[in-house]
């Protein structure tokens, strides 16, 4: 089997598992998860083989693994779709395969496989726990998720979408994968659909990302009609790019390339939850599981950044677009970081952190740091996946405590209800610390340091001071809120009885944590810059490898002590102050950063509600339906109907009844009758009278004829 064939096959096991579970094994939980995990494992295996082949391939950037087929006939030509593995997709494929496989494994434990069915559980709501007899005493234990099989089906569909997106060689199938993941995100956020909050969050997520998607679709249509192809390799031909860059458009003085880039980027803004379409991601945490949160927070949202990296040769053509991207990324990075500082829900902190980190990547792309963005994308995926799964483990441990005390009013996700979990859940604690330090950019050891450092030096060496300073501040805040989270969750003593009775999670959950922790540390070492600290190390493998994706390999940013110092200071400083500020905090009231403005996310939900959602409701219900359709158009129709009716009855009253019936019809009859009545006496029955009359008439006619014929 050639590598190309294998690449084609990678996405299919999960989608097959999806159909099998949905259609057949729905009722058998064990079979369903075996199918799901097995399919994920197969895809993982395929991905690893492809990745190994990619590592061994010669000049992969110039001659990637690629294969395509005809898909849609378009007039004289065909729209081709296919697969492509070049260095960029290879590294993305690597982390995608790992994280997805880990998620499948983790879900088995998270959804309490092996536990009894719940006492009062029903589909659509989180399991509430079951009562079992143990040593003669009834005891509350976690119960298995009622829709266990369905979850694995959704995961399979999700995996299919992600693999499709990563492996496709063109924007259209990328968009297909993109939207399928959008659907999965909707289904998974709304997994516990009976909860109104989850249901609303699902709709919000879908609609907000769809705002971006329709712009992206426009961008794709524009690109396709401008170049006649959607395949990356056709678009990135130098002459095609040159044409796109030189064609002007009427909008904002952008070139065609700039406008296409901007439209595509709006898609990313939606998908990667960048300002101003960031509002859906934190709400997505309303969704039930940290697993699903992790899926679309750590993996799916990366797709947006991946697309921008993918389209970088096109997007980077127009400096205006690049400025917009840099601005949005930088602003989002700092903006989300400030909100994350004031959140108390363990998952929400991570959600805002994700938004902020994605902002880092976008900003890196905006300043042209292509490799840095890709690098941070990969490292972030690993450590953020680790953090999300870790938080899930924490929540799961806390739910144990909740079941133990039986007090369901205690929110197992609120960090102020935790504390001291490091002793109860050691594996979770250590892996979480690794992930958190990676996120903070703990120097030298963690992957986050190397990637974030590269972004900062990219901004610095491009002379983008504003971006550099803002990102540095955001990095400080990142370290700060991460340490706040670790301190509140794991350090100190237990603040509630629930935290007291938290329990470490099963191996299916901790194993993924350990695996991801290895990557959260080790993956950074493949990207150590060549002239780090002025030493002359081996060339950065990551830079060489991913950089070769571009036709013109980008130069590595030169080493700068300023950047290195900044990285060091913001990471360590943030961590230190975070610990300092929260080491003795036990209740939200003592937290001086619980500013309403931050806590309420700058009131963006309210603002959008006022600016867009309410007007949209009004426009739909009142203006379009009531006024226009019911009032104006149907009013016209009813007017015509009534007018026709009026004309009809007028015609009947004044023409039919009056003129025709009364005047013409009845009139003729009446006249005939009158004449008859008046002529009646003539008919006397006297034969001689008749004859006399006949004679007179005869004579008269004869006389007349005589006059006419003879005399005249």
């Amino acid at each position, binding site marked *: 089997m050639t590598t190309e064939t294998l690449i084609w096959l990678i996405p299919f096991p999960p989608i097959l598992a999806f159909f099998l579970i949905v259609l057949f094994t729905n009722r058998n939980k064990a079979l369903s998860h075996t199918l799901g995990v097995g399919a994920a494992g197969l895809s993982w295996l395929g991905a690893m083989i492809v990745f190994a082949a990619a590592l061994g391939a010669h000049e992969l950037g110039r001659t990637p693994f690629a294969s395509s087929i005809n898909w849609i006939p378009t007039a004289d030509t065909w729209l081709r779709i296919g697969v492509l593995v070049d260095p960029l997709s290879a590294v993305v494929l690597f982390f995608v395969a790992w994280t997805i496989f880990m998620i499948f494994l983790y879900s088995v434990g998270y959804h309490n496989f092996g536990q009894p069915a719940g006492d009062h559980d029903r589909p659509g709501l989180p399991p509430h726990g079951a009562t079992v007899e143990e040593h003669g005493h009834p005891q509350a234990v976690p119960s298995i998720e009622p829709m266990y099989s369905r979850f694995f089906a959704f995961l399979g569909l999700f995996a299919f979408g992600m693999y499709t997106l990563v492996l496709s060689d063109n924007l259209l199938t990328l968009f297909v994968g993109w939207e399928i993941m959008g659907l999965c995100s909707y289904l998974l956020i709304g997994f516990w659909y009976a909860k109104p909050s989850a249901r609303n969050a699902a709709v919000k997520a879908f609609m907000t990302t769809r705002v971006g998607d329709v712009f992206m679709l426009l961008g794709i249509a524009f690109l396709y009609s401008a170049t006649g192809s959607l395949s990356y390799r056709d678009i990135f031909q130098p002459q095609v790019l040159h044409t796109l860059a030189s064609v002007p458009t009427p909008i904002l003085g952008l070139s065609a390339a700039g406008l296409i880039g901007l439209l595509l980027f709006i898609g990313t803004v939606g998908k990667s939850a960048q300002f101003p379409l960031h509002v859906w991601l934190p709400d997505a945490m309303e969704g039930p599981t940290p697993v699903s949160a992790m899926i679309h927070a750590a993996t799916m949202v990366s797709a947006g950044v991946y697309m921008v990296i993918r389209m970088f040769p096109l997007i980077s053509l127009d400096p205006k677009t690049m400025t917009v991207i840099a601005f949005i990324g930088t602003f989002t990075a700092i903006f989300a970081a400030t909100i994350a500082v004031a959140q108390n829900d363990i998952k929400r902190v991570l959600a805002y952190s994700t938004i902020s980190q994605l902002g880092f990547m976008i900003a890196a792309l905006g300043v042209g740091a292509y490799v840095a963005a890709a690098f941070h994308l990969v490292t972030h995926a690993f450590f953020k996946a680790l953090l999300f799964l870790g938080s899930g483990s924490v929540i799961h441990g806390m739910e144990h405590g909740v079941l133990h005390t039986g007090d369901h009013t205690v929110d197992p996700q609120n960090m102020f209800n935790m504390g001291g979990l490091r002793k109860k859940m050691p594996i979770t604690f250590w892996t979480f610390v690794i992930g958190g330090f990676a996120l903070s950019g703990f120097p030298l050891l963690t992957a986050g340091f190397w990637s974030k450092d590269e972004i900062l030096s990219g901004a610095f060496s491009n002379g983008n001071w504003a971006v550099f300073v803002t990102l540095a501040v955001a990095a400080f805040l990142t370290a700060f809120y991460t340490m706040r989270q670790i301190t509140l969750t794991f350090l100190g003593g237990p603040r509630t009885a629930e935290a007291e009775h938290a329990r470490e999670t099963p191996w299916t959950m901790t194993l993924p944590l350990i695996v991801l922790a290895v990557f959260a540390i080790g993956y950074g070492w493949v990207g150590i810059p060549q002239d780090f600290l002025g030493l002359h190390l081996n060339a950065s493998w990551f830079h060489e490898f991913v950089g070769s994706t571009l036709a013109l390999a980008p130069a590595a940013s030169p080493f700068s002590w300023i950047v290195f110092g900044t990285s060091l200071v913001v990471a360590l400083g943030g961590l230190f102050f975070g610990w300092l500020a929260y080491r003795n905090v036990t209740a939200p009231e003592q937290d001086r950063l619980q500013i309403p403005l931050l806590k309420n996310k700058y009131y963006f939900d309210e603002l959008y509600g006022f600016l867009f959602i309410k007007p949209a409701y009004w426009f739909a219900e009142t203006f379009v339906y009531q006024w226009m359709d019911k009032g104006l158009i149907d009013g016209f129709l009813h007017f015509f109907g009534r007018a026709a009716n009026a004309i009809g009855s007028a015609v009947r009253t004044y023409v039919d009844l009056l003129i025709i019936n009364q005047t013409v019809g009845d009139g003729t009859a009446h006249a005939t009758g009158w004449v008859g009545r008046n002529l*009646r006496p003539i008919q006397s*029955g006297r034969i001689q009278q008749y004859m006399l009359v006949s004679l007179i008439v005869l004579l008269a006619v004869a006389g007349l004829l005589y006059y006419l014929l003879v005399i005249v």
Partner: protein
Amino acid sequence: MIPLSWYLILSAALFSIGLFGVLSRKNAVAILLGIELMLNAVNINLVSFWRYGDVAQMAGQVFAIIVFAVAASEVAVGLALVISVYRRRNTVIADELDLMKW
């Protein structure tokens, strides 16, 4: 030879007498008699036009004979009707037989 006009005057006079009889007499039998006179006046006309016209053409004589036949049958039917009416109504006065009105 007697001129044609004399015959025509005779015929017209006979016709007028018959007509006068038809119009003035009350008795139905008398009216029938009047009709007979008128028919015979016609016959005189027919025959005299034949004689004074193209003698080879027999049409006038033939018509006259047809008129005889018609007159005879008319009288037969007419008198039968009169008798029938008399039996029912006990009258042969034409004015009294006015049932055939509206």
